[in-house]
């Protein structure tokens, strides 16, 4: 056995565990506590009246809708290297590259589209990006459209999305 393997004793073999009754008792205690609380005061119910009420517990690690970041001078950070498209497990990133003439870089995407209907929101594109040009920190969790095409987000739309955790620009492409 390798030295990095730790043997953990199996739980649930004791007499008390095998009776099941103490566990059922503990479970029902919690259930009835919530039932009494909720009946006594309906405002304490732990649900949201969505969409009037919006969630407040979205953290920095939450993978929301994608966005393309900007450089400090507000131009696009993406250089169309196709790393995100290569890493993408659902092949839903469509990039067409073109020449960039503003002296910032040589290459940029003329089209950068994400088919959010095919996207599995795994975040591999964010990890693969060498330019910190694509992020999922928009906090946007819902997208509404009338046709399939509405869910294919194009470059300019992705550039309009804002980051909600204070970091707006790319940290790799200044």
């Amino acid at each position, binding site marked *: 056995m390798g030295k990095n393997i730790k043997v953990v004793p199996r739980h649930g073999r004791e007499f008390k565990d095998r009776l099941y009754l103490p566990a059922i008792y503990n479970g029902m205690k919690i259930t009835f506590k919530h039932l009494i609380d909720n009946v006594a005061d309906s405002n304490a119910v732990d649900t949201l009246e969505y969409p009037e009420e919006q969630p407040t517990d979205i953290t920095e690690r939450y993978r929301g809708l994608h966005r393309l970041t900007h450089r400090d001078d507000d131009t696009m950070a993406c250089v*169309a*290297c196709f790393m995100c498209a290569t890493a993408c497990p659902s092949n839903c990133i469509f990039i067409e590259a073109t020449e960039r003439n503003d002296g910032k870089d040589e290459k940029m995407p003329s089209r950068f589209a994400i088919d959010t209907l095919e996207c599995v929101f795994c975040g591999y594109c964010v990890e693969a990006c060498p*330019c910190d040009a694509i992020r999922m920190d928009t906090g946007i969790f819902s997208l509404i459209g009338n046709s399939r095409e509405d869910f294919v987000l194009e470059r300019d739309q992705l550039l309009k999305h804002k980051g909600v955790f204070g970091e707006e620009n790319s940290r790799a492409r200044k």
Partner: protein
Amino acid sequence: MKSIDIIVDGQIYSATKGSLLIDLLIKNDLKVPYFCYHEALGADGNCRMCMVEIEGQKRPQIACDTLIKDNMIVKTKGEMIDGVHRDVLELELVNHPVDCPVCDQAGECKLQDFYMDYGLYDSKIDVAEKVKHEKHIDLGSSVMLDQERCVLCARCTRFTSNITKTHELGIIGRGDHARVSTMPGKKLDNPYAMNVVDLCPVGALTSKDFRFAQRVWFLTSTPSICQGCAKGCNIYVDHNKLKYKDEKIYRFRPRRNDEVNGHFICDEGRLSYKSLQEERQEFMEIDGREATLGEVLGRYDTLLKSSENIVILADANLYIEELEKIISYADSIGAKLYTPMESYVDEEFGDDWLRSSMRASNAKGVEMLSIADKIPDEKISLLIDFNHPDAKSIEAEHTISMRTHSDSGKSDIVLPLASYLQSSGKIINEDGIEQFSDRVLECSEPVATVSEWISILSRADIGGEV
């Protein structure tokens, strides 16, 4: 030449005495890194990457300039020699801009490969401190130069001075300021210029035509034969099918064949992939209108029955197998078969290297099958054309054309024909070398190959259902 045995990494190999050590290493797939050596250009010994340890020698030696001698014992790996490789590579990368995300060479770049194999050190130099040169210079002939990415291996300059003998490229400046350049105001201008893109081991010379079109790791390479002229140069066809789109060819690259084209192809052949995909005939037509197969077969039957003097024209770019099919088809319907060769001759195109003035790739095959050249001057009631360029100018009462590309020529029936990459068969080049070319791309309905059209039409001929 005497054959002798030498030991490389503990293995015995037989080699020709006096031949280059690096050739033996490459031939036997022994891993040796190199930039400047190229089998077509010979040894230059400037990159110093191909260092090997030779027993009895004080210092490591470059394999590309070492001649094989008796009782040689060579080591290509080991702690010492790996350290040498790493240090030489680090020196090559001192001023490299490391802009792989925007570099088209990424994925087929020797610097990247060797860094993963031998490098893996942490860079001691900040990108901001690196010596700056000019980037994205248009050299002419669809070649882009990035002086910063260059490792000064001089393959491109040796190509223009030793092989094309046009001397456009040179290395100017010294030390950190050395860079590849043309003379002021001069452009890279010769019919083989784009070969420097393949020769360049890094991203310094890239193709303007392929620029940003695709990342190379998405491409599939399939071996094939270029049909731009009767030389029959061996090529790789790099193609890819994007999601929701048709399969597309992105570039042709030369494929080594010492009997035919060596390591190179001409620029016109290299860029001929474009015309293969543009303005293709994609539908069946009757009298200029799109038609169904049923209508086509009906019209074909009436035309065939009412015609007496039937003439078939066959393109001299078709494969031997296809020409044989056409010959037996002509026999079965009692038609005469011709392949006029005059319009294939282009004296301006030919040269003494890889460009032949005979632009039909299978001219020798047509000759071998003894297909008649000249059409006699008589009234033609039905002309069945298999993509021959002369078809438009030949007078006939009725015409059935099988075309790869749409053109304005008037025709009773037009059938879409597969291009040579969508079919397979043998061609014989102008030197009599027979080469097989496999199917690269699939045909999309209703495009079909010559053989397929003949079997479709022949079934209609005997009144069968299709």
